[in-house]
């Protein structure tokens, strides 16, 4: 699935990275808890979250998350978008709730992340 597909499925607005709609994503995760996000491997992953602060972007950069979707119509301030631009992370905003956004992507074939971070995985 491409980020452009994610945008269409979630009826989302592109806030950052409009030139990266052809990039591929393979998994997704939905969480407001960055501690939990950091515990799972994110490779070509979309993060759907209702949490808005610079740590969402910083956590995403640490894990090489490809795209952040802010749910429930929330929009980040310009400073957060600037950090995302520096990190090369695409940012979308959808009016859907986190649950619905995750469900829509799942039924369109985007699976969840499973592998724990760390040397042993599991």
């Amino acid at each position, binding site marked *: 699935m491409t980020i452009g597909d994610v945008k269409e499925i979630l009826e989302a607005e592109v806030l950052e990275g409009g030139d990266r709609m052809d990039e591929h994503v393979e998994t997704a995760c939905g969480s*407001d*808890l*960055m*501690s*939990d*996000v*950091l*515990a799972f*491997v994110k490779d070509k992953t979309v993060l759907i979250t209702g*949490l808005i*602060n*610079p*740590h*969402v972007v*910083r*956590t995403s*950069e*640490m*894990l*090489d998350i490809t795209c952040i979707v802010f749910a429930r119509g929330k929009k980040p301030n310009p400073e957060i978008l600037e950090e995302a631009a520096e*990190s090369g992370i695409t940012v979308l905003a959808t009016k859907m709730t986190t649950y619905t956004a995750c469900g829509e992507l799942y039924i369109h074939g985007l699976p969840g992340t499973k592998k*724990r*971070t*760390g*040397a*042993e995985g599991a």
Partner: protein
Amino acid sequence: MAILMEKKFPVEAGAYETAGEASTTIKRTLKQLGVSAEVLRHVSVACYEVELNLVIHSEGGTLTLQVEPDKVTLISEDVGPGIPDIEKAMTEGYSTANAEARTLGFGAGMGLPNMKRNATAFDIQSEVGRGTTITMSFALSS
């Protein structure tokens, strides 16, 4: 083995706004040095967790990055308050984080165990009233 590079980053207690900046710099530095994506992810996750711990729990400290030909080492040293029960602190889900940290999406009690999982070698020394030192190394050849 010879240390090719050493960098120190002071981390201020309670500086939630800037928390993560040292980790971002460290990640970008290692990427420029050509560290593989897999190792880079382990270092980045552990580094971010330990930097946040310094901001959330410590009275201030320093994060040191050392690069050697065969490994990367991260050392977190703080000036207090120290951890009374390390075994408990290493348990997933156990957290003493404050409301501010939780509001930002942290304090789930995953930090220390996640660092240990990501590092090739992990050591924690702590004394109440003195401070905590965490040393993590990451093998570069895998």
